[in-house]
């Protein structure tokens, strides 16, 4: 077959795919009889009200000398690892504000960090295209630096995000500017599976974020510059289980909902969205005008432990607290007393849900907890 004939077939196939996508979009639209907020209102759900001092900044963690790009909590004992433009990871005891480790990185251009489930190791990745593992119990070298205990190399682009598979310290999932996600075996340093890429169906642009399902650790979602999120089964690397369309810009951040049947996304289009993993439905859009016709990008999100609250950091310094059921902003942590002086770049909830940690371009991390009067029903 000649190139010209192939190109004709290509054009026909493109039209087929576009028609199928349009049919799918319309059929899906017919099934969207309500969004979450519409349903919650029909059930008479009361709005949340937060007093001005209900969510308080109770700790400020100082020590980085550059913007904080990423943070992660341990599953226990309230420790946090943070990664910064200063080329370091710091491990904090969030309760006492003490630093337990300050790790100078071989490559200063770090973008992501993660705590292992057992709390013995931390991982990081960035523009060196590698994921580096540090054992927190190992001896420092003669310069006082913690040595790299394992290097996971194989990505052909920057490592944007990493997360350990829950309940085991052996496997980690990374996302990359090379358009793939990879599941690694840390013991061998080898790739167990590659999701997407040149020879498999997957994202068609840089992948910026991953989130593993806490209820079913075989499932994870990824968010990409191709404006989609994709759900993967780690046992099936050949194709995504489902692709979620809707965003009109890069999907910068993805996070599983606490019940494991939904996940949230944050995008350059200024919206957060909630998707259902079993049906693929877009259940809710979270968007509110910020003022001055600006549409700031969503840079990071986290859910409270019940899922009632969605915390979203924006590129203009706002940090909206959304009521996920009624799709209303109940608080802006970016403008309360004692808030960060720069924009919030990363967010994370403690394992017991009692505290939110925010990291900022002002070089600090802050811990927020509920300091008001709690009513039990």
């Amino acid at each position, binding site marked *: 077959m000649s*190139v010209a004939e*192939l190109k004709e077939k*290509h054009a026909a*196939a*493109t039209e087929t795919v576009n028609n*199928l*996508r349009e049919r*799918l979009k319309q*059929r899906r639209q017919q*099934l*969207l009889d*309500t969004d*979450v907020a519409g*349903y919650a209102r029909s*059930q008479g759900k009361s709005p*949340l009200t*937060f*007093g001005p001092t*209900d969510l308080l900044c*109770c700790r400020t963690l*100082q*020590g980085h*000398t550059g913007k904080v790009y990423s943070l992660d909590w341990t599953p226990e004992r309230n420790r946090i690892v943070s990664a910064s433009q200063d080329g370091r990871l710091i491990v904090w005891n969030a309760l006492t*504000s*003490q*630093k337990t480790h300050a790790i100078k990185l071989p490559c200063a*251009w770090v*973008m992501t960090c993660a705590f292992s489930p057992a709390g013995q190791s931390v991982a990081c990745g960035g523009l060196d295209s590698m994921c580096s593992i540090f054992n927190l119990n190992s001896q420092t070298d003669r310069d006082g630096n913690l040595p790299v205990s394992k290097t996971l190399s194989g990505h052909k682009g*920057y490592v944007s995000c990493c997360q350990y598979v829950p309940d085991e310290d052996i496997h980690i999932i990374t996302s990359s*500017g*090379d358009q793939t996600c990879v599941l690694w075996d840390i013991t061998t340093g080898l790739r167990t599976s590659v999701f997407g890429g040149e020879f498999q169906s997957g994202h068609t*642009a*840089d992948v*910026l974020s991953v989130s593993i399902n806490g209820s079913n650790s075989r499932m994870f979602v990824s968010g990409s510059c*191709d404006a989609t999120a994709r759900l993967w089964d780690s046992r099936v690397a050949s194709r995504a289980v489902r692709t979620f369309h809707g965003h009109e810009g*890069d999907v*910068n951040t993805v996070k599983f909902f*606490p019940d494991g*049947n939904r996940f949230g996304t944050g995008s350059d289009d200024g919206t957060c969205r909630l998707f259902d993993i*079993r*049906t*693929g*439905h877009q*259940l809710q859009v979270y968007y509110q005008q910020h003022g001055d016709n600006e549409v700031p990008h969503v840079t990071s999100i986290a859910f*409270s*432990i*019940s*899922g009632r609250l969605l915390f979203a950091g924006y*590129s203009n310094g706002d940090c909206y607290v959304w009521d996920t*059921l009624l799709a209303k902003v109940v608080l802006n942590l970016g403008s309360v007393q004692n808030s960060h002086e720069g924009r919030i770049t990363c967010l994370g909830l403690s394992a*017991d*849900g*009692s505290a*939110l940690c925010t990291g900022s371009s002002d070089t600090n991390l802050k811990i927020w*907890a*509920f300091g008001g009067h*709690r*009513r*039990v*029903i």
Partner: protein
Amino acid sequence: MFFLMPLKSFNFCPFFFLFLHRREMQSGRLKTVVSPIPQRIRSFQAADTRGKHRVQAELKRLEQEARFLEEELEQIERMEKASAASKEMLGNVESKPDPLLPVTNGPIIPVWDQWFEGPQEAQGCKCWIL
């Protein structure tokens, strides 16, 4: 001269640039392509073959995508409406105790208030790591 491109809207490394790839716009999205460095003049026939393989690979990908979309269209006929998912979500959210909510299900766990049991702005360890 090599440069490292700032890869996203991260205000990441404003000074350093290292050319690994040249990026091209494709309907608003960035796509990474490899910039070919011609070593010698290629024959028209060889160039035709390279173009053919690329188009064939792309065609295969589109045919695969079409199959996936047809599968999804079949699945969607058996799918529940969005209200069912909303109902389930409401039930799950309201049944779980949440320490960050002013009104929540019990039981209250005392450790939720650990953040206010010591000095709120801890005096310890404000050292800078240089």
